[in-house]
């Protein structure tokens, strides 16, 4: 799909990508992936100036890539144009910060109490809206300074070494979820450790900062290459991090023979946690000592776009529907519209909500007790748009195990 960049010649203008694009669906003025991708790319390659503010409005969901019957790298062509797009000064400053959630996280967690208090204050959000064009409609996730550490290897747990890539959200906002990931890995016989890495770089790419994204790729590749060389697999629990490790690093480091090779090796050894557990299950190795359920739990599953783009099927959905007492439906209602930092931007907030409306409607009509989805920002959007609790599937699966199954 995105392996060579002459693929624009494959574009037959069938417009399948436009029918799949969440932004086109919600907002007709958006020119759509066909126009911003292959069509304008022909001009751009001839050196013709055709910069457009609309480039900023691409969600980076990759649905156009999946819809294309002719394997055109539609979203990649848009992402490259986005990286050379000229922004207004205010957006430039705001997006500089949004491109660096790792830096933000480190700053905010110096004194998380103060950060959370300040971010919750109406006047502060008013100022952020006026000066930075960050929408006051949303609340920021709370920061916490509790560090996520590699668990002490128990004597009973000498299983396969895996390296958990936590990503910014788990590291700075919800380390508890990271602990649950580690527990789930241990319950299933793995010997997990936490990677000492920073941001994966997806937010940098999404905000058109290819230089920063490359820096993140280099740092991450350097820090994980050794473990992968030693035979360890990398595990992600955030679908966007997983997507980046699998596709982004190798793309960004294409020009560097040595780093590019390392990036490819990391990609080939990166597994989403659900994917890893489903592989265990397929091999008959999943720990299935589940507790008989006391009450029925009615859940709805939302597949994040960056989960779909990984091409692994629906591992979490298939895992959770085997848990006793869990009744789960796959919403299959499109993109949530959040796309990480996109939904926080004042000028993009209305589109973000319009995109999500189909999903919100789907959730309302299936009336679940909670929605499960792997992506932290999808969770934020779902709670914001519906008021229904959204959680990571890790928490559902971990809860299902008997106390005795835990290490």
């Amino acid at each position, binding site marked *: *799909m995105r392996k060579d960049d002459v693929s624009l010649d494959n574009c037959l203008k069938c417009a399948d990508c436009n029918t799949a694009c969440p932004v*086109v669906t919600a907002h007709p003025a958006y020119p759509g992936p066909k126009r911003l991708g292959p069509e304008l790319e022909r001009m751009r390659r001839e050196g013709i100036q055709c910069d457009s503010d609309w480039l900023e409005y691409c969600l980076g969901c990759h649905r156009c890539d*999946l819809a294309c*019957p002719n394997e055109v790298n539609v979203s990649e062509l848009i992402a490259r144009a986005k990286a050379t797009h000229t922004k207004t000064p205010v957006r430039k400053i705001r997006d500089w910060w949004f491109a660096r959630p790792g830096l933000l996280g480190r700053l905010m967690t110096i004194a998380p109490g103060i950060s959370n208090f300040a971010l919750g204050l109406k006047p502060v959000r008013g100022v952020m809206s006026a000066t930075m064009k960050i929408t006051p409609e949303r609340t920021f996730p709370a920061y916490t300074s509790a560090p996520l550490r590699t668990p002490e290897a128990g004597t009973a747990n000498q299983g396969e070494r895996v390296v958990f890539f936590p990503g910014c959200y788990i590291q700075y906002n919800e380390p508890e979820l990271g602990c649950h990931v580690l527990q789930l890995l241990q319950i299933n016989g793995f010997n997990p450790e936490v990677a000492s890495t920073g941001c994966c770089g997806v937010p940098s790419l999404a905000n058109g900062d290819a230089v920063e994204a490359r820096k993140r790729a280099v740092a991450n590749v350097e820090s994980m290459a050794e473990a992968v060389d030693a035979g360890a697999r990398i595990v992600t629990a955030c679908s966007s991090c997983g997507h980046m490790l699998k596709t982004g690093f190798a793309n960004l480091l294409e020009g560097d023979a040595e780093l590019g090779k390392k990036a490819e090796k990391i*990609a080939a050894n990166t597994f989403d946690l659900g994917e890893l557990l489903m592989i265990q299950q397929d091999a008959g190795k999943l720990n299935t000592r*589940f507790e008989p359920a006391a009450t029925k739990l009615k859940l709805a599953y939302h597949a994040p776009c960056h989960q779909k783009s990984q*091409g*692994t099927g629906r591992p979490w959905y298939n895992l959770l529907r085997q848990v006793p007492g869990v009744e789960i439906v*796959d919403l299959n209602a499109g993109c949530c519209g959040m796309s990480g930092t996109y939904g926080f931007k004042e000028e993009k907030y209305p589109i973000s909500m319009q995109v999500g409306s189909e999903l919100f409607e789907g959730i309302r009509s299936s009336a679940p007790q909670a929605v499960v989805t792997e992506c932290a920002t999808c969770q934020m959007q779902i709670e914001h748009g519906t008021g229904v609790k959204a959680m990571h599937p890790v928490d559902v699966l971990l809860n299902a195990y008997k106390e005795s199954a835990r290490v």
Partner: protein
Amino acid sequence: MKNVTSTHFDVIVAGAGVAGITSAAVAASRGLRVALVSTGPGSFVLGAGCVEVQNMDRNTPSLEEAIGFFRNFTELAGCGFRGGLEEKRYVPTILGSFQTVSMAPFYMWNGDPSAASQVAVVGIRGLSTFDSNFVAERLAYHASKLERGSKYIAYEIDLSIEEDTVPGTLQFGNRYDRDARFRQELRDALKPIATKANAIILPGILGLKSGQIEIDWLENQLGCLICELPTLPPSIPGVRLFNRLEARLRKAGVEVFSGFPIQKMEIEDRRYKGIMLDAPARPLHLTSETMILATGPFSGKLMGAPWSGVNRDLHPLDSTGAVVAENIYAAGAILHNSKAHGGNAMAILTGYASGMLAAGVGVQYAQG
């Protein structure tokens, strides 16, 4: 605990066109665990999915059951087909000609000139891909040649346009799905015309996800038959048909892998084992007991063997005439049978037959 594996299936169907979708539906209805693998959504974006049986022998074994199954399946999907083997209708096109069909989705079926005598051809101001004057004039000409007495009168309605946009069928289709006010606006614009006609021909704009309920609503409100014509790509009625059928397959438990082409098919000792999907980072390995190849006319290379057609059981043959693998079946346009390949009827027939064969149900089937 149910043991649901995520990478092993009873049947993998490759290709999400009419043939692939039909065979996946048949296999699932027989209780098999099915995966549907595709690079893109068939060719629905180009057309509307009408069915022609004209070029086929009506007595072809299994044809009637296959058509019956397809009708039932599309009905359940909310996108029912009208017509049947013995029917012959004239469905209008945006070029003002008539296409002869045996079956069509319900929203096209009423365009036949014998179904209505006063037909309003309604364009939308600013929508350049549908010229109602042209269409009405040409349809009147062609209807008279068919000795049908229908009158075609062109109208143009005004619909609100989103700011900074050019009117397009995709915009209207999305708004029909998402915006109740738009649906009412369309109804109100058509109401005065509906009193003067017993059928309305519209460019295809009635939603990409809508089904019988949403389109019947408009027809009932107007008290007038509606026929929607697919315009230049994207064809809204075609995309709608795909969306409805795919959603129905998911509901029936079919696991859908879309967006990733097959990199390799594993065949050992004339037995198919599995496929490799070209997923990011590393191929996704899927295995199944049987494989149904419905990948269209351009992709015969997948098996790594020269292709010389199929035998009576739909098993593909290599250049020596030997069966490539006993657990592969072929369906749809990949069969290259130009003599009998007519407007989806062959796709439905071979899709049906391959699904039944994969389920171990003997189907009497003869090609052409």
